[in-house]
């Protein structure tokens, strides 16, 4: 029974992925939910809650509204009033299980808000039943299509950081990514969306290259490539090996105008006794970092057989599979993960995996907010 978990936690949901990706950009964000989603998000998933006045609310849908189908009308009226009060850069509604199941027309509600207020508005018809990367990816792509839809004069050395949210990155990791970019003579002109600014979103079309630091940024990267010819690099700098690989790949992508995954040619060993569990871009980057053997040519291509393998415990995004190699697996099954770990000696994973880590294996904790929230 893949859906039953005796002891393991659950990853942040698509609903929270939407809100996390949009947070910090001056939007009015509403989870169309009875209750609980807001407290979970603010309790566990959103560290910026304390230092920022981000506007995140729930619609507080009631049983009667859900049964009678009146929640959408009330939500539109409430959000119009709130939008006129707070004057946000945009508004967004993320659905949750009950509105999803009852077929609430989130897009219609968003359209009504936009028509009445003139404020760009989005509806995200997520179910609250998938993992966060789906929602975050959807939100970032929607932002790009709406606010970055015209070409701009190219900025030499300009880089977009795509797929950065606190669900996957800590502040220190983000700063490290930025330092690697700047270290190779490039500069960040837009960040999607952690540490980003709303007014910079439109400037993304002037970048020379995008750096995708999590799976949530891939759809946006593809959009920017298809619309404006901006190539992208996939990889998270997290140490000397990946710093170098990403830096080389960025320079090469700019030069050759081609998209590069730093994982191309990097094949995990199915029998490796060291495993990394996590978001696939971060996990594969860490796996590269922990490999003893490295062959890195000046084009940024890696061609080694890895002795560390990856388990992606999130499976919903269609972009995940392409990030993994033959020796890696993607699964949400607790028993399968437990079985895989039983063969391991070293496990890099969030601390909550300690409950399925064999006693004779070493667990090296890598905090992942999308999994254990703010528990460290």
């Amino acid at each position, binding site marked *: *029974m893949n*859906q*039953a*978990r*005796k*002891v393991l*936690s*659950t*990853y942040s*949901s*698509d*609903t*929270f992925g939407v809100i996390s990706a949009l947070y910090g950009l001056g939007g009015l964000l509403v989870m169309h*939910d*009875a*209750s*609980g*989603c*807001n*407290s*979970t*998000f*603010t*309790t*566990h998933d959103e560290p910026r809650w304390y230092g920022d*006045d981000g506007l995140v*609310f*729930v*619609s*507080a*849908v*009631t*049983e009667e509204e*859900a049964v009678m189908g009146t929640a959408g009308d*009330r*939500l539109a009226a*409430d*959000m119009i*009033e709130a939008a006129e*009060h*707070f004057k946000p850069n945009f508004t967004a509604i993320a659905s*949750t*299980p*009950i509105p999803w*199941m*009852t077929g609430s027309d989130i897009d219609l509600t968003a359209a009504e808000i936009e028509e009445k207020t003139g404020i760009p508005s989005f509806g995200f018809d997520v*179910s*609250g*039943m998938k993992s966060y990367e789906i929602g975050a990816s959807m939100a970032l792509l929607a932002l790009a299509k709406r606010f970055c839809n015209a070409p701009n004069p190219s900025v030499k050395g300009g880089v977009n950081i795509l797929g950065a949210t606190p669900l996957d990155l800590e502040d220190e990791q983000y700063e490290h990514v930025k330092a690697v970019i700047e270290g190779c003579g490039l500069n960040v002109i837009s960040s999607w969306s952690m540490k980003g600014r709303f007014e910079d979103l439109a400037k993304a079309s002037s970048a020379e290259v995008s750096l995708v630091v999590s799976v949530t940024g891939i759809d946006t990267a593809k959009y920017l490539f298809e619309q404006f010819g901006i190539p992208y690099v996939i990889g998270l700098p997290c140490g000397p090996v990946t710093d170098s690989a990403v830096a080389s790949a960025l320079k090469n992508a700019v030069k050759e105008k081609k998209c590069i995954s730093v994982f191309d040619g990097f094949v995990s060993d199915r029998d490796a006794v060291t495993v990394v569990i996590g978001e696939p871009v971060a996990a594969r980057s860490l796996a590269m970092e922990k490999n003893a053997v490295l062959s890195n040519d000046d084009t940024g291509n890696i061609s080694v057989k890895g002795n560390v393998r990856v388990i992606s415990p999130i499976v919903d995004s269609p972009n995940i599979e392409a990030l993994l190699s033959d020796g890696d697996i993607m699964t*949400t099954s607790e*028993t399968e993960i437990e079985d895989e770990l039983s063969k391991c000696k070293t496990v890099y994973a969030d*601390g*909550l995996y*300690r*409950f399925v880590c064999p006693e004779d294996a070493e667990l090296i*904790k890598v905090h992942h907010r999308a999994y*254990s*929230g703010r*528990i*460290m």
Partner: protein
Amino acid sequence: MLKQTGLEYSVPARGGWTIVHVGMLVPEAHEIFVCAAGCLRGVVLSAAEMNLTDRFSTVAIEEHNVTDGDMEELLVEGVTDILNRLKKRPPCVLIYTSCIHHFMGTDLDDCFRILNERFPDVDFVDCYMTPTMRKSTLNPDKMMRKRLYAAIKPLKTDDRDVLLCGNCFAVSETSEIKTLIKKAGKRLLELPAIDNYSDYKKLGSAGLIISNLSVAKDAADELAEKLGIKSLQIPFSFGYEEIRDNLEKLAKEIGTTYDTFEADKARADEALRKAHDVIGNCEIAVDGMITTRPYSLARLLAEHGFNVVTVFSDSVGGEEADYEWLEKHVKGIRFEKCVSPEMRTFTPDDTVKILALGQKAAYFTQTGYFVDMVENGPLYGFDGIVELSRMMTDAFLNVKDLKKTLDIKGWGCESCI
């Protein structure tokens, strides 16, 4: 200014206990939540923060379950799989279903019938995480207090046993409730003070049920009816007369008398006076998290000369008289609804020292001087007022790390990592 918008804000001060924490009061029970990922997210991490992951499992509902109509099979087979994989079979399993089961008309009766047949050695209790019912008469909080006692079966009544029903925390040993119970030669049974399932089942011998929280009244009444005994309400309050009336009512019911009112009142007055000597005219903010009677508390303090400036609470329910008294007698007092969207941008006056009573009041006023307690803690009666006076004095004198305190979900919990 926003009108009464339906949008709600959630304060990141999460000391209040959730249904996960409350359910864990059933000793040795295992909780299994059957919900969508978004709903599981909060509860699974609550269990982790309680350091009780070994008593907590989940079954994730996926989109295909909704369209395939196999919700019953998912629940039954998911729970079966978990129970078969646990190292030790729990004596009791609390199965929490969610809003989606009820909107889809999931046949829960049949699910529990099958599970009872498969696991005859387990007491299964149906629990409900249904936030769409939050504003209904029988809301999830009231329902959870009821389900806490669902596995108790009637035993031979022992008139010496008095069960205090529905509290998350045991009342203080020095409270007047316990003094009266002892005086009458009886024993007070409290779920938070019980640590094994065998003793939990013995609650079925209670000869009288008392309750002091409004959210526990339905639980007390239902259990009393099941056991064929009386349920007595002695509502929590900070009002002297109300406390006296309740203690007299309890004393009469258990065959004794409450005859220390004047002495207890004097003790409470003296404690408040001493606290006021230290705290003086410092601004005080009270919230509805520290106590179930924030307006009663604010009134008590105002009547004793404290400078109460704000009450943060989401409703006045049941406290209309205290609310009206405060409005009439405390000039400039503010009543703030915590869930109002405007509270997201609430700006405290950071030029003055504020003493906050409760985590939400502390969050909104951004003060490190606060009393950290939820849902009345162990307080009751005049003894509770004495203890609260001590806590206020301590909070006024000793600053706390606000963010560190607010970061932990469920008062009294810790990280499991």
